[in-house]
């Protein structure tokens, strides 16, 4: 029998975005509603991409069911807080934090002893639980 040691931390490389996002969508906390799963994947992937973009290794995010929604926390060891940057209407960048803030019912950045955690909660509202939306 071979034992695979699994790190709680993701490497600072682009593939870590899907490494973080896909399991979150498949988790029990995602509750299976397609639009909620997509939203959860987005609010997970954006801070992970931001961490990787700044060469930080994020901790593997774990969604948690909370009353009325799902909470995702993405932590890394970069002490800098992500900030909303105003994207030029026709500019290619700076929409990630805006997307997370817009989709989330609550969102914030919490400093830790070693870095920061981005917390975002996605509400289970009718728009996010539209199980028949995707065809």
């Amino acid at each position: 029998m071979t034992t695979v040691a699994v790190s709680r931390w993701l490497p600072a490389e682009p593939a870590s975005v899907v490494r973080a996002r896909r399991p979150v969508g498949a988790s029990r906390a995602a509750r299976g509603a397609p639009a909620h799963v997509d939203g959860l994947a987005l609010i997970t992937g954006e801070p992970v991409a931001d961490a990787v973009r700044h060469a930080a290794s994020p901790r593997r995010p774990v969604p948690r069911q909370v009353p009325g929604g799902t909470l995702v926390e993405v932590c890394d060891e970069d002490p800098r807080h992500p900030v909303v940057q105003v994207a030029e209407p026709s500019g290619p960048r700076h929409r990630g934090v805006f997307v997370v803030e817009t989709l989330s019912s609550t969102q914030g950045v919490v400093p830790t002893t070693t870095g920061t955690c981005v917390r975002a909660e996605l509400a289970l509202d009718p728009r996010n639980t539209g199980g028949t939306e995707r065809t």
Partner: protein
Amino acid sequence: MGTSTTPPAGGDEAQLTALGTHDVRPEFDVSHEERDGRLVVHVVGELDYHTAPRLQTYLSSRLDRPVVLDLEGVEFCDSSGLGCLVEAYKRAGAAGGRFSVAAPHPFVRRVLELTQLDQIVPMFATVPDALRGS
């Protein structure tokens, strides 16, 4: 000989940790065809921080003519994917071409609307609609 994963399955954290050991390359493919003198580029998979540069590279040499980007096969798009669409739109304008997107999934369309990119990049419900409108 079997393979086990530590820690053992137990809550969501153990479940996610186990899933994280799988091959997680994002599904992504891009191809194109000529239709009515226009280029229809078909994308299949997830358009994200990992794959958007590939699409940008694919499009960059093809934007001197009308291009319709068929998003019917794209089930997920993040801000990097959005940035790729904006960049293609701008490059097409600079190269004398035209760029539009067609058939976005409801969630992708919602993200385009949230970021108001639907007011920048022409968006159509179907590829034939885009071909008629481009």
